[in-house]
């Protein structure tokens, strides 16, 4: 016992002499800022801990007794900077991905080729490094994507060596479903929502990562990171599982599934900033270039293949345009732009006055349309 009180007295003397707070000294000696205080109040520690702490204290006492080299001597520099916002978002996303890999039996990552998917893919490569992500990627191909998206997809799959599953709703193809003939709503439902459900059922995936962000749209803002789906793939916004801390409940019954959104807390700016910081490849459609477009209902639609029939008076004009989001080309309006580099894109994004999804025709069909689509199984 006297050994302990002797130690405490020495520690306090050292704190006074060095000008450090008792909790700092405590941390140096016991790796616990409150350790000394606890011992003072009658707390216990093992003999071994006491001896080790005592030895550390002795070293510090010698240090302080030695003549100070110079007042300007630099303090031992550790990286004292707090984690940046992006570092924290990255760590959170990695944590989420690892949790799914550990808890789900058959997870898959939805890969839509866009900028968010590109970020998600990079995070997956990081999360499991040096191992490979323990899940395949799934692309639901509506057959109406920009041709360049498909080229980019296949190139990425080859370069990074991940397993890529491409699913197309063949029933829809046989019925000739397309945005020009059936309208955006029916096309999206059959070729995207139904196709996604088909693929999840076919491969029996029990967890699917999606790149959606809460800042995109109002109903997304309320969705959990681990978002439960019934056997019918339905989302019930009124019956979501409470999600506390970073403890995620991934338990499901057979046939049910979970959609997981590791980028939930990212904003559009975070995504761009991360792409810039990490030098992540993205399709060149995001960069301005002269492209053949026609203006239709206020949107600049790119004539990407011969399936786009021109109306009377319509003729494609070459214009400097780029795309803020990527989807089916007839449903994705371009914006006039001269931004050909990432910083220029980001600058344009920061100065713009319309929200990201506005270029998407599907959200304008009706008020609260996204929430309705999600309840029906849309991602």
């Amino acid at each position, binding site marked *: 016992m006297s050994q302990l009180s002797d130690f405490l007295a020495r520690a306090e003397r050292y704190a006074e002499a060095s000008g450090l707070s008792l909790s700092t000294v405590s941390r140096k000696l016991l790796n616990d800022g409150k350790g000394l205080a606890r011992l003072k109040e009658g707390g216990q520690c093992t003999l071994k801990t006491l001896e080790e702490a005592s030895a550390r204290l002795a070293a510090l006492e010698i240090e302080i007794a030695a003549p100070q080299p110079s007042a300007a001597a630099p303090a031992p520099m550790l990286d004292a900077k707090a984690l940046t*916002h992006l570092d924290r978002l990255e760590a959170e996303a990695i944590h989420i991905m690892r949790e799914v890999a550990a808890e789900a039996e058959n997870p898959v990552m939805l890969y839509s080729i866009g900028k968010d998917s590109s970020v998600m893919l990079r995070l997956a490569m990081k999360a499991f*490094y040096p191992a490979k992500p323990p899940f395949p990627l799934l692309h639901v191909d509506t057959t109406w994507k920009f041709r360049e998206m498909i080229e980019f997809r296949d190139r990425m799959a080859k370069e990074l060596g991940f397993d890529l599953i491409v699913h197309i709703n063949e029933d829809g193809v046989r019925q000739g479903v397309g945005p020009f003939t059936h309208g955006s709503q029916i096309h999206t439902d059959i070729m995207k929502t139904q196709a996604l459900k088909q693929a999840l059922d076919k491969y029996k995936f029990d967890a699917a990562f999606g790149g959606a962000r809460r800042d995109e749209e109002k109903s997304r*803002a309320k969705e959990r990171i681990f978002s439960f789906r019934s056997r019918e793939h339905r989302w019930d916004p009124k019956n979501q599982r409470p999600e506390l801390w970073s403890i995620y409940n991934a338990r499901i019954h057979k046939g049910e599934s979970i959609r997981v959104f590791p980028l939930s807390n990212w904003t559009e700016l975070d995504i761009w900033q991360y792409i810039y910081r990490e030098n992540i490849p993205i399709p060149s459609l995001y960069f301005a270039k002269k492209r053949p477009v026609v203006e239709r209902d206020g949107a600049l639609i790119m004539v990407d293949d011969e399936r786009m029939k021109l109306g009377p008076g319509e003729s494609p004009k070459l214009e400097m345009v780029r795309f803020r989001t990527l989807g089916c080309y007839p449903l994705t309006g371009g914006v006039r732009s001269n931004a050909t580099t990432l910083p220029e894109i980001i600058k344009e994004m920061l100065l713009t006055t319309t929200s990201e999804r506005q270029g998407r025709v599907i959200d304008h069909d009706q008020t609260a349309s996204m929430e309705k689509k999600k309840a029906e199984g849309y991602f």
Partner: protein
Amino acid sequence: MSHAALTVDDDILAYLDAHERKSMLRFITCGSVDDGKSTLIGRLLYDTKLIYEDQLKALEADSKRVGTQGDRIDFALLVDGLAAEREQGITIDVAYRFFSTERRKFIVADTPGHEQYTRNMATGASTADLAVILVDARNGVMTQTRRHSFICSLLGIRHIVVAVNKMDLVGYSKETFAAIETEYKKFAAPLGFQSIVCIPISALEGDNITAKSARTRWHKGPALLPYLESVEVASDLEDKPFRMPVQWVARPDHAFRGYAGTIASGEIYPGDEIVVLPSGKRTSVKRIVTADGDLPRGRARQAVTLTLADEIDISRGDVLCAGNSPAEQTDQFAAHILWMHDDQLIPGRQYLLKTANRTLPATVTELKHKINVNTLEHLSGKTLAINEVGVCNVSTSHPIAFDSYAANRTTGAFILIDRRTNATVGAGMIDFSLRRAQNVHWQDLDIDKRARAAAKHQRPCILWFTGLSGSGKSTIANLVEKRLHDLGRHTYTLDGDNVRHGLNKDLGFTDADRVENIRRVAETAKLMVDAGLIVLVSFISPFQSERRMARELVEDGEFLEVYVSTPLAVCEQRDVKGLYAKARRGEIKNFTGIDSGYEAPTHPELTLDTSKVSAEDAAARIVDYLDSNGYLVG
């Protein structure tokens, strides 16, 4: 756009660099219905110019169509996202919003005000560092205000802003504000907040939101947004002892074995000694691996992969701790539990408990008291209903590594999951271990279960007969026991009659009492198995969760579920004890099969229907089963 303090001429690279170094604050907003939370958040988004032109146009249109502010913009419509709640004019779930100023990035959890959605508030609070609690200046501190403050405190939030809203409706009265401030601080004193700042605002008029208002010159404190930009909530996470729950083991090839996880607290350097819990094995850190290269130091909140100096068996669920300051371990602890589901918490019922990285069966062994969240009074109670908070004793099937929640929000927290529905039903915060579990070792008795069983020439087990009243459980059990006795085996039968009159005579027939009844019977049967007996348990035991609890009390192969599946119609027709008739007449309540449900076993070891086979044949089949599966050796 406030990210667009940026103008066309600014240097984007410098801007990006500055933006990346912004700090971050996560906070929640809470308050009573109609205190104006959504309006406040809408106002913050509007005033920090995070609303795009198209959104503003939609907002103006919506304001005219369904707004409550006449021709003015109804900011609440910006954030009241779900179609259902637009119609009801209320917020029904947690919504997360993002905005940034030149100094900080903010993540806001917008949490609902009405009582039945307290669980959502706890959700938002669990990841927040600060809470903005709205109070309607006209109403002052209300029941909801107290409740929300208590939940913030319970979930470990240490910084509070009381935004006294609708000051425009009380004529910007200094006295009204002062009275609310005094009342709030008095109420909140025992809640242990580090800081409480009260600000008079009008979310609708924009007073004291982004800048101090001329209409409240008497207010000496800051406006809301400048305060949020500058408040220091830096947690001492990195100063705490090192903890890393292992999430996933990376084994790309035989040469590499790394332990992936997010550092919950503290920091770690290559060469540091760590101790692995629960095994208690010690080793040191070799490398801190990330895809961007090894780190010289790992620190709280980073997601890393550690390789270790020695080959130790470590898997998901283990916690790596600082060698000189490991977490505690226990299988019995006291905790505050917030209940979040319509099905009440029943002490004795088994749930799944999930910590940061581990899921295991757990039981609330005792509800010590409930807490009235409005007055903080202690109340007695047998169960916890949705949105109630209780102080409980919890028992887990295996020891877990933990710190108290006050010391560490990651290693001190858990959720409870319903085993049948998989719903998240409770949130828990560990207070302290109920015993020094690491010092308690089971007495290593020389005569063990195996020795006792060998002396009796049998493998002990529980034959658990479940089925409706009158299905023939006890009749078959009696016949089985007779045959086993004839064969020289050692048996005992526990049934409703001999237990209800003694051990369990204090229990009634409510769901809670039925669960406790089964728990005691299961524990008794377990002791008898330990004594080497073949135990026959004959109980209706209608709930799967309790039968599973009994099964998991004993080792694999020691629990044999015998489902006596005689149909209800046959049982009722027999009505040996006349109980069905009474139940039909309403003289007995909660009678299984009549006004209380029966959950049939999904995978019983044996199923016997006495409307198809005789009791004698059924008994013979059970004895055959025991014989052919090695229970009757020698």
